[in-house]
Protein backbone atom coordinates (compact mmCIF):
# COMPACT_ATOMS: atom_id res chain seq x y z
CA UNK A 1 0.00 0.00 0.00
CA UNK A 2 1.20 3.46 -0.79
CA UNK A 3 1.97 5.48 2.24
CA UNK A 4 0.72 8.82 1.14
CA UNK A 5 0.42 11.27 3.93
CA UNK A 6 -2.31 13.65 4.80
CA UNK A 7 -0.19 16.55 3.59
CA UNK A 8 0.22 15.13 0.13
CA UNK A 9 -3.50 14.58 -0.25
CA UNK A 10 -4.11 18.10 0.92
CA UNK A 11 -1.70 19.43 -1.66
CA UNK A 12 -3.26 17.28 -4.33
CA UNK A 13 -6.71 18.68 -3.56
CA UNK A 14 -5.32 22.19 -3.50
CA UNK A 15 -3.64 21.68 -6.84
CA UNK A 16 -6.78 20.25 -8.41
CA UNK A 17 -8.82 23.07 -6.95
CA UNK A 18 -6.48 25.74 -8.21
CA UNK A 19 -6.45 24.29 -11.71
CA UNK A 20 -10.23 24.12 -11.91
CA UNK A 21 -10.47 27.48 -10.17
CA UNK A 22 -8.19 29.12 -12.71
CA UNK A 23 -10.57 27.98 -15.43
CA UNK A 24 -13.56 29.40 -13.57
CA UNK A 25 -11.63 32.62 -13.15
CA UNK A 26 -10.97 32.88 -16.87
CA UNK A 27 -14.63 32.38 -17.65
CA UNK A 28 -15.53 34.93 -14.99
CA UNK A 29 -13.14 37.44 -16.50
CA UNK A 30 -14.89 37.03 -19.81
CA UNK A 31 -18.19 37.92 -18.15
CA UNK A 32 -16.57 40.89 -16.46
CA UNK A 33 -15.14 42.45 -19.59
CA UNK A 34 -18.52 42.60 -21.26
CA UNK A 35 -20.21 43.60 -18.05
CA UNK A 36 -17.70 46.37 -17.51
CA UNK A 37 -18.42 47.97 -20.81
CA UNK A 38 -22.11 47.22 -21.25
CA UNK A 39 -23.54 45.93 -17.95
CA UNK A 40 -24.73 42.90 -19.90
CA UNK A 41 -24.19 39.39 -18.58
CA UNK A 42 -23.39 37.28 -21.58
CA UNK A 43 -24.68 33.80 -20.87
CA UNK A 44 -22.99 32.52 -24.02
CA UNK A 45 -19.61 32.95 -22.34
CA UNK A 46 -19.36 29.24 -21.52
CA UNK A 47 -19.94 28.40 -25.17
CA UNK A 48 -16.96 30.53 -26.12
CA UNK A 49 -14.82 28.27 -23.96
CA UNK A 50 -16.29 25.19 -25.61
CA UNK A 51 -15.76 26.65 -29.09
CA UNK A 52 -12.19 27.61 -28.23
CA UNK A 53 -11.39 24.01 -27.38
CA UNK A 54 -13.13 22.54 -30.39
CA UNK A 55 -11.65 25.07 -32.83
CA UNK A 56 -8.20 24.28 -31.46
CA UNK A 57 -8.90 20.60 -32.07
CA UNK A 58 -10.01 21.49 -35.59
CA UNK A 59 -6.93 23.55 -36.38
CA UNK A 60 -4.46 21.25 -34.68
CA UNK A 61 -5.81 17.80 -35.46
CA UNK A 62 -7.79 18.36 -38.63
CA UNK A 63 -5.74 21.08 -40.34
CA UNK A 64 -2.46 19.94 -38.85
CA UNK A 65 -1.36 23.34 -37.52
CA UNK A 66 1.32 23.27 -34.85
CA UNK A 67 0.06 24.01 -31.37
CA UNK A 68 0.75 27.74 -31.14
CA UNK A 69 -0.75 28.72 -34.50
CA UNK A 70 -3.70 26.45 -33.72
CA UNK A 71 -4.12 28.21 -30.39
CA UNK A 72 -4.07 31.62 -32.04
CA UNK A 73 -6.34 30.55 -34.88
CA UNK A 74 -8.86 29.15 -32.42
CA UNK A 75 -8.81 32.35 -30.40
CA UNK A 76 -9.30 34.38 -33.57
CA UNK A 77 -12.16 32.19 -34.75
CA UNK A 78 -13.99 32.54 -31.46
CA UNK A 79 -13.32 36.27 -31.32
CA UNK A 80 -15.08 36.39 -34.67
CA UNK A 81 -18.04 34.61 -33.07
CA UNK A 82 -18.06 37.25 -30.36
CA UNK A 83 -18.07 39.87 -33.05
CA UNK A 84 -21.06 38.26 -34.72
CA UNK A 85 -22.89 38.11 -31.41
CA UNK A 86 -22.36 41.81 -30.79
CA UNK A 87 -22.86 43.06 -34.30
CA UNK A 88 -25.91 41.03 -35.30
CA UNK A 89 -27.62 40.25 -32.03
CA UNK A 90 -26.75 42.51 -29.13
CA UNK A 91 -26.74 45.69 -31.18
CA UNK A 92 -30.20 44.89 -32.48
CA UNK A 93 -31.48 44.71 -28.94
CA UNK A 94 -29.71 47.68 -27.46
CA UNK A 95 -32.63 48.86 -25.41
CA UNK A 96 -33.69 45.50 -24.07
CA UNK A 97 -34.17 44.92 -20.36
CA UNK A 98 -31.80 42.90 -18.21
CA UNK A 99 -34.10 39.93 -18.50
CA UNK A 100 -34.41 40.02 -22.28
CA UNK A 101 -30.65 40.40 -22.55
CA UNK A 102 -30.22 37.29 -20.43
CA UNK A 103 -32.63 35.46 -22.69
CA UNK A 104 -31.06 36.74 -25.88
CA UNK A 105 -27.66 35.52 -24.82
CA UNK A 106 -29.13 32.21 -23.67
CA UNK A 107 -30.78 31.79 -27.07
CA UNK A 108 -27.49 32.58 -28.75
CA UNK A 109 -25.74 30.03 -26.59
CA UNK A 110 -28.31 27.42 -27.65
CA UNK A 111 -27.47 28.27 -31.26
CA UNK A 112 -23.74 27.94 -30.67
CA UNK A 113 -24.21 24.64 -28.90
CA UNK A 114 -26.47 23.31 -31.64
CA UNK A 115 -24.03 24.45 -34.29
CA UNK A 116 -21.09 22.84 -32.53
CA UNK A 117 -23.05 19.60 -32.26
CA UNK A 118 -23.68 19.59 -36.00
CA UNK A 119 -20.08 20.38 -36.87
CA UNK A 120 -18.19 18.29 -34.35
CA UNK A 121 -20.76 15.71 -33.38
CA UNK A 122 -21.33 14.58 -29.85
CA UNK A 123 -18.04 12.94 -29.04
CA UNK A 124 -15.47 14.45 -26.77
CA UNK A 125 -12.20 15.49 -28.39
CA UNK A 126 -8.73 15.60 -27.01
CA UNK A 127 -5.80 17.87 -27.62
CA UNK A 128 -2.19 17.09 -26.76
CA UNK A 129 -0.75 18.92 -23.78
CA UNK A 130 1.20 22.07 -24.63
CA UNK A 131 4.35 20.50 -23.33
CA UNK A 132 5.07 16.90 -22.43
CA UNK A 133 2.33 14.44 -21.68
CA UNK A 134 1.97 12.57 -18.46
CA UNK A 135 2.55 14.11 -15.12
CA UNK A 136 5.28 14.77 -12.63
CA UNK A 137 5.01 12.97 -9.33
CA UNK A 138 6.49 15.00 -6.54
CA UNK A 139 6.29 13.68 -2.99
CA UNK A 140 3.20 11.74 -3.89
CA UNK A 141 1.55 14.78 -5.48
CA UNK A 142 0.87 14.46 -9.17
CA UNK A 143 1.40 17.65 -11.10
CA UNK A 144 0.16 17.90 -14.64
CA UNK A 145 2.31 20.23 -16.71
CA UNK A 146 -0.84 21.32 -18.47
CA UNK A 147 -2.28 22.50 -15.17
CA UNK A 148 0.70 24.78 -14.89
CA UNK A 149 -0.07 26.01 -18.38
CA UNK A 150 -3.63 26.77 -17.38
CA UNK A 151 -2.37 28.72 -14.40
CA UNK A 152 0.14 30.50 -16.57
CA UNK A 153 -2.48 31.41 -19.15
CA UNK A 154 -4.83 32.68 -16.44
CA UNK A 155 -2.10 34.63 -14.73
CA UNK A 156 -0.91 36.15 -17.96
CA UNK A 157 -4.39 37.13 -18.99
CA UNK A 158 -5.23 38.68 -15.63
CA UNK A 159 -1.92 40.56 -15.67
CA UNK A 160 -2.39 41.72 -19.26
CA UNK A 161 -5.94 42.81 -18.59
CA UNK A 162 -4.95 44.66 -15.46
CA UNK A 163 -2.25 46.49 -17.36
CA UNK A 164 -4.53 47.04 -20.30
CA UNK A 165 -7.29 48.54 -18.19
CA UNK A 166 -5.00 50.53 -15.94
CA UNK A 167 -2.41 51.75 -18.37
CA UNK A 168 -3.58 51.83 -21.96
CA UNK A 169 -5.77 54.59 -23.27
CA UNK A 170 -8.12 52.09 -24.83
CA UNK A 171 -8.47 50.12 -21.65
CA UNK A 172 -9.25 53.22 -19.68
CA UNK A 173 -11.66 54.28 -22.39
CA UNK A 174 -13.48 50.96 -21.99
CA UNK A 175 -13.79 51.56 -18.28
CA UNK A 176 -15.04 55.04 -19.03
CA UNK A 177 -17.74 53.55 -21.26
CA UNK A 178 -18.89 51.38 -18.40
CA UNK A 179 -18.72 54.22 -15.91
CA UNK A 180 -20.71 56.67 -17.95
CA UNK A 181 -21.45 55.88 -21.59
CA UNK A 182 -22.97 59.26 -22.35
CA UNK A 183 -19.96 61.14 -21.00
CA UNK A 184 -17.68 58.72 -22.83
CA UNK A 185 -19.33 59.62 -26.10
CA UNK A 186 -18.97 63.29 -25.26
CA UNK A 187 -15.22 63.10 -24.89
CA UNK A 188 -15.02 61.38 -28.24
CA UNK A 189 -14.77 57.72 -27.21
CA UNK A 190 -16.48 55.58 -29.86
CA UNK A 191 -18.64 53.68 -27.39
CA UNK A 192 -20.02 51.24 -29.93
CA UNK A 193 -16.57 50.25 -31.07
CA UNK A 194 -15.59 49.72 -27.48
CA UNK A 195 -18.59 47.47 -26.89
CA UNK A 196 -17.72 45.61 -30.02
CA UNK A 197 -14.12 45.19 -28.86
CA UNK A 198 -15.24 44.06 -25.43
CA UNK A 199 -17.23 41.22 -26.96
CA UNK A 200 -14.32 40.16 -29.12
CA UNK A 201 -11.91 40.37 -26.22
CA UNK A 202 -14.09 38.39 -23.90
CA UNK A 203 -14.73 35.77 -26.57
CA UNK A 204 -11.01 35.55 -27.21
CA UNK A 205 -10.29 35.06 -23.52
CA UNK A 206 -12.98 32.42 -23.27
CA UNK A 207 -11.40 30.69 -26.24
CA UNK A 208 -7.95 30.83 -24.70
CA UNK A 209 -9.37 29.19 -21.59
CA UNK A 210 -10.99 26.54 -23.74
CA UNK A 211 -7.78 25.71 -25.58
CA UNK A 212 -5.80 25.60 -22.37
CA UNK A 213 -8.13 23.19 -20.59
CA UNK A 214 -8.92 20.81 -23.43
CA UNK A 215 -5.74 18.75 -22.93
CA UNK A 216 -6.80 18.16 -19.32
CA UNK A 217 -10.54 17.81 -19.52
CA UNK A 218 -11.34 16.92 -23.15
CA UNK A 219 -13.96 19.02 -24.86
CA UNK A 220 -17.36 18.30 -26.31
CA UNK A 221 -20.24 20.35 -27.60
CA UNK A 222 -22.28 20.57 -24.42
CA UNK A 223 -19.53 21.44 -22.00
CA UNK A 224 -20.17 25.17 -22.16
CA UNK A 225 -23.22 25.52 -19.94
CA UNK A 226 -21.67 24.19 -16.75
CA UNK A 227 -18.44 26.12 -17.22
CA UNK A 228 -20.51 29.20 -17.91
CA UNK A 229 -22.50 28.63 -14.73
CA UNK A 230 -19.44 28.20 -12.54
CA UNK A 231 -17.78 31.18 -14.18
CA UNK A 232 -20.86 33.30 -13.58
CA UNK A 233 -20.75 32.22 -9.95
CA UNK A 234 -17.13 33.29 -9.71
CA UNK A 235 -17.88 36.60 -11.39
CA UNK A 236 -20.72 37.38 -9.00
CA UNK A 237 -18.79 36.18 -5.97
CA UNK A 238 -15.83 38.34 -6.91
CA UNK A 239 -18.02 41.33 -7.53
CA UNK A 240 -19.22 41.91 -11.08
CA UNK A 241 -16.63 43.75 -13.11
CA UNK A 242 -13.70 43.05 -10.78
CA UNK A 243 -10.87 41.20 -12.53
CA UNK A 244 -8.84 40.51 -9.46
CA UNK A 245 -12.02 39.61 -7.61
CA UNK A 246 -12.88 37.14 -10.37
CA UNK A 247 -9.48 35.51 -10.08
CA UNK A 248 -9.71 35.13 -6.32
CA UNK A 249 -13.35 34.04 -6.39
CA UNK A 250 -12.65 31.54 -9.18
CA UNK A 251 -9.80 30.01 -7.21
CA UNK A 252 -11.93 30.01 -4.06
CA UNK A 253 -14.74 28.17 -5.81
CA UNK A 254 -12.30 25.69 -7.31
CA UNK A 255 -10.65 25.05 -3.95
CA UNK A 256 -13.98 24.79 -2.15
CA UNK A 257 -15.12 22.17 -4.63
CA UNK A 258 -11.91 20.24 -4.49
CA UNK A 259 -11.61 20.17 -0.72
CA UNK A 260 -15.26 19.36 -0.35
CA UNK A 261 -14.85 16.46 -2.76
CA UNK A 262 -11.79 15.36 -0.82
CA UNK A 263 -12.93 15.76 2.74
CA UNK A 264 -16.70 16.00 2.83
CA UNK A 265 -18.70 14.50 0.01
CA UNK A 266 -17.83 14.45 -3.62
CA UNK A 267 -21.49 14.39 -4.55
CA UNK A 268 -22.19 17.62 -2.74
CA UNK A 269 -19.15 19.53 -3.91
CA UNK A 270 -21.08 21.67 -6.40
CA UNK A 271 -23.66 22.39 -3.75
CA UNK A 272 -21.03 23.53 -1.27
CA UNK A 273 -19.61 25.99 -3.77
CA UNK A 274 -23.09 27.30 -4.45
CA UNK A 275 -24.01 27.56 -0.78
CA UNK A 276 -20.88 29.65 -0.28
CA UNK A 277 -21.97 31.78 -3.17
CA UNK A 278 -25.48 32.23 -1.78
CA UNK A 279 -24.18 33.15 1.65
CA UNK A 280 -21.86 35.66 0.07
CA UNK A 281 -24.75 37.13 -1.89
CA UNK A 282 -27.04 37.29 1.11
CA UNK A 283 -24.50 38.88 3.40
CA UNK A 284 -22.32 40.83 1.01
CA UNK A 285 -24.52 41.40 -2.02
CA UNK A 286 -21.98 43.39 -4.00
CA UNK A 287 -19.61 40.40 -4.05
CA UNK A 288 -16.41 39.86 -2.13
CA UNK A 289 -14.43 42.47 -3.98
CA UNK A 290 -17.12 44.73 -5.32
CA UNK A 291 -16.28 47.84 -3.36
CA UNK A 292 -19.22 49.51 -1.72
CA UNK A 293 -17.58 52.81 -2.48
CA UNK A 294 -17.35 52.13 -6.20
CA UNK A 295 -20.86 50.70 -6.19
CA UNK A 296 -22.04 53.83 -4.46
CA UNK A 297 -20.29 56.03 -6.96
CA UNK A 298 -21.67 54.04 -9.84
CA UNK A 299 -25.20 54.89 -8.95
CA UNK A 300 -24.72 58.62 -9.28
Amino acid sequence: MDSIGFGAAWLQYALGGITVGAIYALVAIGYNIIYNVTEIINFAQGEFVMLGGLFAVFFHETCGFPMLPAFLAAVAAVALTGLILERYVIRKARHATVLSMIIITIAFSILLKGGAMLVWGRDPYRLPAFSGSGSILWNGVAIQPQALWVLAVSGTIVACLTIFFQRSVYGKAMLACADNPAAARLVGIPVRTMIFLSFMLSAAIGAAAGVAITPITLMEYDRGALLGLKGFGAAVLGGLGQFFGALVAGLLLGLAESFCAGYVSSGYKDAVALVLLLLALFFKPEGLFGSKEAAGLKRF
Partner: protein
Amino acid sequence: MLTVRSLHTYYGNIHALKGVSLHVRSGEIVALIGANGAGKTTLVHSIAGLLKPQKGTILYKEEDITALAPEAVVQRGIALVPEGRQIFATLSVETNLEMGAFIHRNRRDQVQRDMGALLERFPILKERRRQLAGTLSGGEQQMLAISRALMARPDFLLLDEPSMGLAPLVIREIFAIIQRLRDEGRTILLIEQNARAALEIADRGYVMETGKVVLQGEGRELLVHREVQRAYLGKGSKEIWDA
Protein backbone atom coordinates in the same frame (compact mmCIF):
# COMPACT_ATOMS: atom_id res chain seq x y z
CA MET B 1 -19.35 80.49 -35.52
CA LEU B 2 -22.33 78.28 -34.71
CA THR B 3 -25.64 78.61 -36.44
CA VAL B 4 -28.69 76.54 -35.59
CA ARG B 5 -31.53 76.73 -38.07
CA SER B 6 -35.10 75.67 -37.31
CA LEU B 7 -34.10 72.58 -35.44
CA HIS B 8 -36.66 69.89 -34.60
CA THR B 9 -35.68 67.14 -32.20
CA TYR B 10 -37.73 64.43 -30.57
CA TYR B 11 -36.83 63.13 -27.16
CA GLY B 12 -38.41 59.70 -27.06
CA ASN B 13 -41.80 60.55 -28.51
CA ILE B 14 -41.86 64.04 -27.06
CA HIS B 15 -41.41 66.81 -29.58
CA ALA B 16 -38.77 68.61 -27.52
CA LEU B 17 -37.46 71.16 -30.01
CA LYS B 18 -39.97 72.80 -32.28
CA GLY B 19 -37.93 74.78 -34.75
CA VAL B 20 -35.18 76.42 -32.74
CA SER B 21 -32.88 78.91 -34.44
CA LEU B 22 -29.97 80.68 -32.84
CA HIS B 23 -26.42 81.70 -33.54
CA VAL B 24 -23.28 82.18 -31.52
CA ARG B 25 -20.51 84.48 -32.69
CA SER B 26 -16.88 83.75 -32.16
CA GLY B 27 -15.60 84.77 -28.74
CA GLU B 28 -18.87 85.49 -27.02
CA ILE B 29 -20.74 83.98 -24.12
CA VAL B 30 -24.31 83.25 -25.02
CA ALA B 31 -26.69 82.34 -22.25
CA LEU B 32 -29.65 80.07 -22.82
CA ILE B 33 -32.30 80.30 -20.15
CA GLY B 34 -35.74 78.85 -19.64
CA ALA B 35 -37.75 76.58 -17.36
CA ASN B 36 -37.10 72.88 -16.86
CA GLY B 37 -38.33 71.01 -19.86
CA ALA B 38 -38.10 74.02 -22.16
CA GLY B 39 -35.67 72.08 -24.36
CA LYS B 40 -32.35 73.68 -23.46
CA THR B 41 -30.60 70.43 -22.70
CA THR B 42 -32.15 68.79 -25.75
CA LEU B 43 -30.70 71.61 -27.81
CA VAL B 44 -27.14 71.22 -26.57
CA HIS B 45 -27.42 67.44 -26.83
CA SER B 46 -28.48 67.90 -30.44
CA ILE B 47 -25.50 70.14 -31.08
CA ALA B 48 -23.11 67.73 -29.37
CA GLY B 49 -24.47 64.83 -31.44
CA LEU B 50 -26.03 62.87 -28.58
CA LEU B 51 -29.47 63.32 -30.12
CA LYS B 52 -30.34 63.19 -33.80
CA PRO B 53 -32.48 66.12 -34.93
CA GLN B 54 -35.40 65.27 -37.20
CA LYS B 55 -35.28 68.51 -39.16
CA GLY B 56 -33.14 71.61 -39.39
CA THR B 57 -29.41 72.19 -39.62
CA ILE B 58 -26.52 72.95 -37.32
CA LEU B 59 -23.62 74.79 -38.97
CA TYR B 60 -20.28 75.10 -37.23
CA LYS B 61 -17.57 77.14 -38.90
CA GLU B 62 -19.54 76.89 -42.13
CA GLU B 63 -19.70 73.10 -41.91
CA ASP B 64 -22.88 71.11 -41.52
CA ILE B 65 -22.51 69.04 -38.36
CA THR B 66 -26.18 68.11 -37.99
CA ALA B 67 -25.97 64.35 -38.17
CA LEU B 68 -22.49 63.82 -36.82
CA ALA B 69 -21.74 61.37 -34.02
CA PRO B 70 -20.51 62.89 -30.77
CA GLU B 71 -16.99 61.65 -31.47
CA ALA B 72 -16.92 63.60 -34.70
CA VAL B 73 -18.35 66.71 -33.07
CA VAL B 74 -15.58 66.71 -30.47
CA GLN B 75 -13.03 66.27 -33.23
CA ARG B 76 -14.26 69.52 -34.76
CA GLY B 77 -13.63 71.42 -31.55
CA ILE B 78 -16.96 71.47 -29.74
CA ALA B 79 -16.96 70.13 -26.20
CA LEU B 80 -19.97 69.72 -23.94
CA VAL B 81 -19.77 69.92 -20.16
CA PRO B 82 -22.96 68.05 -19.41
CA GLU B 83 -25.55 68.75 -16.78
CA GLY B 84 -24.78 67.01 -13.52
CA ARG B 85 -21.10 66.98 -14.49
CA GLN B 86 -21.05 63.34 -15.59
CA ILE B 87 -17.47 62.77 -14.65
CA PHE B 88 -16.19 59.18 -14.62
CA ALA B 89 -16.82 58.69 -10.95
CA THR B 90 -14.99 55.38 -10.60
CA LEU B 91 -11.85 56.58 -12.41
CA SER B 92 -9.13 58.79 -11.01
CA VAL B 93 -8.96 62.52 -11.65
CA GLU B 94 -5.97 62.02 -13.92
CA THR B 95 -7.70 59.32 -15.92
CA ASN B 96 -10.71 61.58 -16.29
CA LEU B 97 -8.50 64.23 -17.82
CA GLU B 98 -6.75 61.68 -19.99
CA MET B 99 -10.11 60.51 -21.28
CA GLY B 100 -10.98 64.11 -22.07
CA ALA B 101 -8.09 64.03 -24.49
CA PHE B 102 -9.15 60.73 -26.02
CA ILE B 103 -9.27 62.27 -29.50
CA HIS B 104 -5.65 63.36 -29.10
CA ARG B 105 -4.60 59.94 -27.79
CA ASN B 106 -1.82 59.59 -30.32
CA ARG B 107 -0.20 62.86 -29.24
CA ARG B 108 0.96 61.77 -25.85
CA ASP B 109 3.30 64.71 -25.34
CA GLN B 110 0.60 67.22 -26.04
CA VAL B 111 -1.77 65.43 -23.67
CA GLN B 112 0.83 65.41 -20.93
CA ARG B 113 1.55 69.11 -21.48
CA ASP B 114 -2.12 70.04 -21.45
CA MET B 115 -2.76 68.01 -18.37
CA GLY B 116 0.21 69.59 -16.62
CA ALA B 117 -1.03 73.05 -17.53
CA LEU B 118 -4.54 72.34 -16.32
CA LEU B 119 -3.35 70.86 -13.07
CA GLU B 120 -1.21 73.94 -12.52
CA ARG B 121 -4.20 76.06 -13.19
CA PHE B 122 -6.46 74.14 -10.83
CA PRO B 123 -4.19 73.30 -7.92
CA ILE B 124 -7.00 71.58 -6.08
CA LEU B 125 -7.24 69.00 -8.87
CA LYS B 126 -3.50 68.53 -8.84
CA GLU B 127 -3.67 67.77 -5.16
CA ARG B 128 -6.33 65.11 -5.81
CA ARG B 129 -5.17 63.77 -9.12
CA ARG B 130 -4.96 60.19 -7.85
CA GLN B 131 -8.34 60.18 -6.08
CA LEU B 132 -11.43 58.63 -7.58
CA ALA B 133 -13.33 61.44 -9.19
CA GLY B 134 -16.53 60.43 -7.43
CA THR B 135 -15.01 61.31 -4.08
CA LEU B 136 -14.52 64.95 -5.03
CA SER B 137 -16.89 67.62 -3.76
CA GLY B 138 -19.45 69.13 -6.07
CA GLY B 139 -17.38 72.17 -6.90
CA GLU B 140 -14.29 70.10 -7.55
CA GLN B 141 -16.26 67.81 -9.78
CA GLN B 142 -17.53 70.73 -11.81
CA MET B 143 -13.98 71.97 -12.10
CA LEU B 144 -12.93 68.52 -13.28
CA ALA B 145 -15.79 68.34 -15.78
CA ILE B 146 -14.74 71.65 -17.30
CA SER B 147 -11.08 70.65 -17.30
CA ARG B 148 -11.91 67.35 -18.93
CA ALA B 149 -13.72 69.18 -21.69
CA LEU B 150 -10.75 71.52 -22.10
CA MET B 151 -8.43 68.54 -22.61
CA ALA B 152 -10.05 68.09 -26.02
CA ARG B 153 -8.75 71.58 -26.92
CA PRO B 154 -12.15 72.89 -27.97
CA ASP B 155 -12.81 76.28 -29.48
CA PHE B 156 -16.42 76.07 -28.51
CA LEU B 157 -17.71 75.04 -25.10
CA LEU B 158 -21.25 74.01 -24.29
CA LEU B 159 -21.89 74.33 -20.56
CA ASP B 160 -25.06 72.74 -19.24
CA GLU B 161 -26.05 74.04 -15.81
CA PRO B 162 -22.55 74.47 -14.41
CA SER B 163 -23.83 76.03 -11.19
CA MET B 164 -26.33 73.32 -10.34
CA GLY B 165 -26.08 72.02 -6.82
CA LEU B 166 -23.24 74.32 -5.86
CA ALA B 167 -22.96 76.72 -2.96
CA PRO B 168 -23.20 80.37 -3.87
CA LEU B 169 -19.55 81.09 -3.31
CA VAL B 170 -18.47 78.22 -5.49
CA ILE B 171 -20.89 79.30 -8.15
CA ARG B 172 -19.21 82.63 -8.17
CA GLU B 173 -15.86 81.06 -8.88
CA ILE B 174 -17.21 78.82 -11.59
CA PHE B 175 -18.64 81.84 -13.31
CA ALA B 176 -15.33 83.59 -12.99
CA ILE B 177 -13.68 80.66 -14.71
CA ILE B 178 -16.20 80.82 -17.50
CA GLN B 179 -15.40 84.45 -18.08
CA ARG B 180 -11.72 83.66 -18.00
CA LEU B 181 -12.20 81.01 -20.66
CA ARG B 182 -13.99 83.50 -22.87
CA ASP B 183 -11.18 85.98 -22.35
CA GLU B 184 -8.77 83.32 -23.55
CA GLY B 185 -10.65 83.24 -26.83
CA ARG B 186 -13.11 80.40 -26.42
CA THR B 187 -16.70 80.69 -27.44
CA ILE B 188 -19.27 79.58 -24.88
CA LEU B 189 -22.91 78.59 -24.96
CA LEU B 190 -24.13 78.56 -21.38
CA ILE B 191 -27.30 77.00 -20.07
CA GLU B 192 -28.34 78.15 -16.65
CA GLN B 193 -31.24 77.86 -14.24
CA ASN B 194 -29.54 80.63 -12.38
CA ALA B 195 -30.69 83.08 -15.02
CA ARG B 196 -29.56 86.14 -13.22
CA ALA B 197 -25.97 85.02 -12.87
CA ALA B 198 -25.86 83.76 -16.43
CA LEU B 199 -27.26 86.89 -17.97
CA GLU B 200 -24.86 89.04 -16.02
CA ILE B 201 -21.79 87.50 -17.62
CA ALA B 202 -23.36 86.80 -21.01
CA ASP B 203 -22.90 88.92 -24.09
CA ARG B 204 -26.21 87.79 -25.43
CA GLY B 205 -29.00 85.57 -24.29
CA TYR B 206 -31.85 83.43 -25.60
CA VAL B 207 -34.97 82.51 -23.68
CA MET B 208 -36.56 79.17 -24.47
CA GLU B 209 -40.05 78.01 -23.65
CA THR B 210 -41.62 74.66 -24.55
CA GLY B 211 -39.20 73.89 -27.35
CA LYS B 212 -39.03 77.34 -28.91
CA VAL B 213 -36.89 80.43 -28.63
CA VAL B 214 -39.26 83.11 -27.41
CA LEU B 215 -36.90 85.97 -26.72
CA GLN B 216 -33.38 87.03 -27.49
CA GLY B 217 -31.20 90.01 -26.81
CA GLU B 218 -28.14 91.27 -25.06
CA GLY B 219 -27.45 89.93 -21.62
CA ARG B 220 -28.03 93.14 -19.70
CA GLU B 221 -31.06 93.89 -21.80
CA LEU B 222 -32.72 90.61 -20.90
CA LEU B 223 -31.83 91.04 -17.28
CA VAL B 224 -34.15 93.98 -17.04
CA HIS B 225 -36.76 92.63 -19.44
CA ARG B 226 -40.10 92.53 -17.68
CA GLU B 227 -41.22 89.13 -19.00
CA VAL B 228 -37.89 87.56 -18.17
CA GLN B 229 -38.00 88.99 -14.72
CA ARG B 230 -41.48 87.70 -14.14
CA ALA B 231 -40.87 84.22 -15.44
CA TYR B 232 -37.26 83.45 -14.64
CA LEU B 233 -35.97 85.89 -12.14
CA GLY B 234 -39.15 85.58 -10.20
CA LYS B 235 -42.06 87.97 -10.24
CA GLY B 236 -41.40 90.58 -7.67
CA SER B 237 -38.11 88.91 -6.98
CA LYS B 238 -36.90 92.45 -6.97
CA GLU B 239 -39.23 93.23 -4.14
CA ILE B 240 -38.38 90.08 -2.28
CA TRP B 241 -34.66 90.01 -2.61
CA ASP B 242 -33.58 93.46 -3.55
CA ALA B 243 -35.40 95.01 -0.68
